[in-house]
């Protein structure tokens, strides 16, 4: 005789992955490594922004990059002159997952970085659902994309802490309003920090870098307070 029985679960399908991501994030925090998950559509300039950032910080901060791509090592090769880089080739998958990040970390020459950037696959849909143990998710858009884009990718903008608008040098030639783009994004994420940069000329890179330095300081401070708390 067979009968049926219903087991109540009521849990996020990704609950276990989220737990592992939180654990890894905590170990990054303990080491003082501030982790940034950089997302955008293809061609917005993730690698260029990272090149500009790594150049700006050369000799100042220890930075490493994990670069996700469907195929090729091209992005990693561009960044290698400045920082340790590991390429995470997804083999066709449209987003990075925690397991790929964990594997990439093992291949980096050391672990004690002040900043670790994870350059996600160019896609504003799927990466939104995957926690890569980052402290901050940064969404990058470029002035050639159209200022009405944020509302089309609500999950990505809702889960991001900062917006960087790249290719400011093209503003005179494209019908793009910085204010309209930021306003659209802030309907979904009112606390979103926003920066306008041109990775090619270096315009705006200083305030973007300063923001990251301050965000890392806040992460260190809150980790210290949490540790004090549990020590009591």
């Amino acid at each position, binding site marked *: *005789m*067979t*009968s*049926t*029985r*219903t*087991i*109540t*679960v*009521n*849990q*996020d*399908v*990704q*609950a*276990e*992955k*989220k737990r592992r991501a939180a654990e890894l994030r905590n170990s990054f925090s303990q080491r003082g490594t501030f982790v940034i998950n950089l997302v955008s559509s293809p061609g917005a300039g993730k690698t260029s922004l990272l090149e500009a950032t790594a150049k700006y910080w050369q000799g100042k901060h220890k930075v490493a990059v994990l670069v996700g791509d469907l195929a090729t090592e091209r992005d990693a090769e561009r960044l290698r002159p400045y920082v340790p880089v590991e390429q995470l080739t997804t083999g066709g*998958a*449209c*987003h990075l*997952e925690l397991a790929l990040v964990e594997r990439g970390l093992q291949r980096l020459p050391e672990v004690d970085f002040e900043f670790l950037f994870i350059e996600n696959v160019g896609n504003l*849909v*799927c990466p*939104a*659902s*995957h926690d890569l143990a980052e402290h901050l998710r940064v969404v990058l858009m470029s002035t050639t994309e159209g200022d009405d884009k944020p*509302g089309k990718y*609500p*999950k990505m903008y*809702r*889960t991001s802490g900062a917006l960087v608008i790249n290719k400011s040098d093209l503003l005179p030639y494209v019908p793009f309003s910085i204010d309209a783009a930021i306003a659209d994004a802030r*309907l*979904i*994420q*009112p*606390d979103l920090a926003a920066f306008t940069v041109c990775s090619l000329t270096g315009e705006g890179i200083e305030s973007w870098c300063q923001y990251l330095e301050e965000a890392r300081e806040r992460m260190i401070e809150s980790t210290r307070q949490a540790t004090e708390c549990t020590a009591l």
Partner: protein
Amino acid sequence: MHEMSLVRSLLQQVEQLRRQHGGLAVEQIEVEIGPLSGVEPLLVGEAFDTLTVEQSLTGVQLVIQEVPLTVHCLKCCLDFEMTELDFHCANCNSSAIRIIGGDEFRLLNVTLQTDSADDSLHGVASESGTQRGSHS
């Protein structure tokens, strides 16, 4: 399209539950999808059909509950359904809004076929309630 990888993960969890509870087969899987789940119900259904054939699980029913996006205002404590994606409180216009539903792809329950003659199953709690994932 990442529905495939999420449904694969869903089926792994279901298989684990089946073994854990001594189920003979899986009869039905009920999931919840909301507007900010990051998955499209239609594509979840297609991924489910493909993967259940691959894994010889044909016949398993998938029930998808589509839920609205619900939020809580931290300032005036109002809970409301958000129909337009504008994260400001419908009552006090505060931007201190926390999502309380509709932003996850959740496994609600699994119906298993069990051998009712198996005494070892008696006394096993019928619920394995687990904590709801936290929202950030």
